[in-house]
């Protein structure tokens, strides 16, 4: 059974189409969604997380095809989502917040205590259990955000730009966490930091202007960069993967022009 199966998903705001016929069959592992600002990454992730049901197309999550309220509920129980720029309720402690997240995802009460404890351990938040969210650093808050997304042990974890605002050490630490999560589930991460994708993901989707323009491994992206010349062209150091990504962006923009 495919963990997430999307066929020709479309999404938009009023008459403006933001996601055009997105199709993918994704299984366990880390999938990186790479794209510039305004490409429609957040809208796509919100659609996959069922925050916005797709306007058209077919979406199946762990065998549940999303059709009505009953299937939306069941599918949402299998998805964990960390939105971008999430305004945390600062007055709650980490433990209270995770209990709340578990309640929202309809985790049975008898399992909540153990699930919260497991999420706290997995994200290394033990020393912050009773800290209020407003007192935590940006990096710790991002980990809390990831913890709330997986407290109900979902099959799909979707994280919208989780590394934004983190210092290099925190980013490296979060990458390790994501790799750990992906051992047993599908993790979809959006970012515009190519390095994060190269070091974390099993698969890369380059999303430009509402469409997938590249689907492959980080090595494939690297190869495109090497084929394009490999060496920096403007005096700035750039990895091959970054060059590959820029090559794709330029190509798409050229085609659109």
């Amino acid at each position, binding site marked *: 059974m495919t963990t997430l199966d999307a066929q020709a998903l479309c999404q938009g705001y009023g008459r403006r189409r933001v996601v055009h016929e997105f199709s993918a069959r994704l299984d366990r592992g880390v999938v990186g969604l790479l794209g510039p600002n305004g490409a429609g990454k957040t809208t796509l992730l919100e659609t996959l997380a069922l925050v916005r049901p797709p306007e058209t197309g077919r979406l199946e999550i762990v065998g549940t095809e999303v059709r009505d309220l009953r299937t939306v*509920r069941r599918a949402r129980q299998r998805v964990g989502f960390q*939105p971008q720029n999430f*305004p945390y309720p600062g007055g709650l402690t980490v433990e209270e917040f995770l209990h709340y997240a578990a309640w929202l995802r309809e985790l049975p009460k008898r399992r909540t205590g153990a699930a919260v404890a497991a999420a706290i351990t997995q994200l290394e938040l033990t020393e912050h259990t009773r800290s209020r969210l407003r007192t935590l650093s940006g990096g710790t808050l991002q980990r809390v955000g990831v913890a709330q997304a997986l407290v109900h042990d979902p099959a799909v974890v979707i994280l919208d730009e989780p590394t934004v605002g983190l210092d290099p050490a925190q980013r490296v630490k979060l990458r390790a966490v994501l790799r750990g999560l992906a051992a047993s589930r599908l993790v979809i991460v959006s970012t515009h930091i190519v390095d994060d994708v190269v070091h974390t993901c099993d698969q890369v989707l380059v999303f430009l202007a509402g469409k997938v323009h590249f689907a492959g491994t980080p090595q494939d992206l690297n190869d495109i960069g090497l084929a394009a010349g490999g060496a920096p062209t403007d005096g700035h150091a750039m990895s091959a993967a970054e060059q590959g990504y820029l090559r794709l962006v330029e190509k798409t923009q050229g085609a659109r022009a």
Partner: protein
Amino acid sequence: MTNLGFRRGAGPALAAAVLLLGALLLIPRRTDWYGSPLLTTAMILQKTAYIAAVCAAVAAAVYPIRHRRRIAALDPLSSRPALHLWAMRTVTLTAWAALGYLVLTAVALAVTATASPGMRLGLANIATGLIILTVAVAFGALAGAIWPRLVTPLLVAVAVHVPLMAGAQHAPTQVRNLFLLYAPAPNWAEPNLTLLLWKLLWAAALLTALATIAAVYGWGARDPRPGARFRVLTSGIAASAIVAAAAVAGMSAAGPVFIPSNTSAHGICHRGEARVCVWDDHKRYLGQLSRMVDAGVLVTGALPQGVTSYLEYGMARQPGEANPVGGQGVIEVGRGIANLDNVAEQLAGQWFSDYADRCGIPIENQLDDHPLRSFLNDLFTAVKDKELSDLDTHRTRYQALTRC
């Protein structure tokens, strides 16, 4: 422990706020309710307009949705439907508010029962207060869910308080019923339980309407089928409209808010000339009330306006209504909230009115501190607990004060 996303300690704080606000509102008016459990619960019901406004504002303020246009809070990620989220939070906040309200009521009843144990509590008053709180909290939680702005709690408080107060003070009974209120103040009669049941149905219609809006415009899992929200909206509005129509028709046909109960009147009410009528559970006041009126008759020589009988609290008729116990006239003792201290003032006012009419005293001179009014008030207060002494002195003083 699940906190439903409320701020830390929001529930206990709400209960404490209800308790504290209620106490602050009740203590300055303690002479009006102390000594009668029924008057106590009636006074709390009167103050429920303030308490409900605060509860609604708190419900709007603590609802855990912020920046909804950024889809940034957790509710949109929930697998629970929006209706479920709203309903569970409403129930939780209502339970905390009700706890504060019931503790307030219990403490006030315990205080007042030291003076008059064993009297009726006015359970209908308590039930009505709880219904008002439930609707107010549900409204506040809905406003917090669909329009979470800094100003929302203030607007919600005004939206709850103003109609309740306006309805309580100026509106006719049928309009007051729509705000779930009783009469401005209770009479000492039996509450109309049929009307109370219709009010419960009316409250259910209001809650159904609020729930419909919560289901359609709240945040949480939604049915993705085209037209699903429209179907929920139309069916919810239709259901609440049907229930509301039935409730309004029922309230209109249910009669007055209070039904005078002749069966509970003391037997003395139906005998002889100068009659004293009290409800059975107020017989304890009969001696005091009789002494007060008898002292008035002895000192002044007559009942005011030539009436030949008088009634105790709440058995007073309203203008234009039939006298519930027959007879040609009554002294109306306490049309509204009144205990024995207030009765002294009211009796003094009735005798004073006779004098003012007879001597043509202009209304602007009929002041509360008029010497005759003060004299009568002191007289009735003095005889409340003991027989009248030095009758001649009082008569002489009365005659001196009532010369035109």
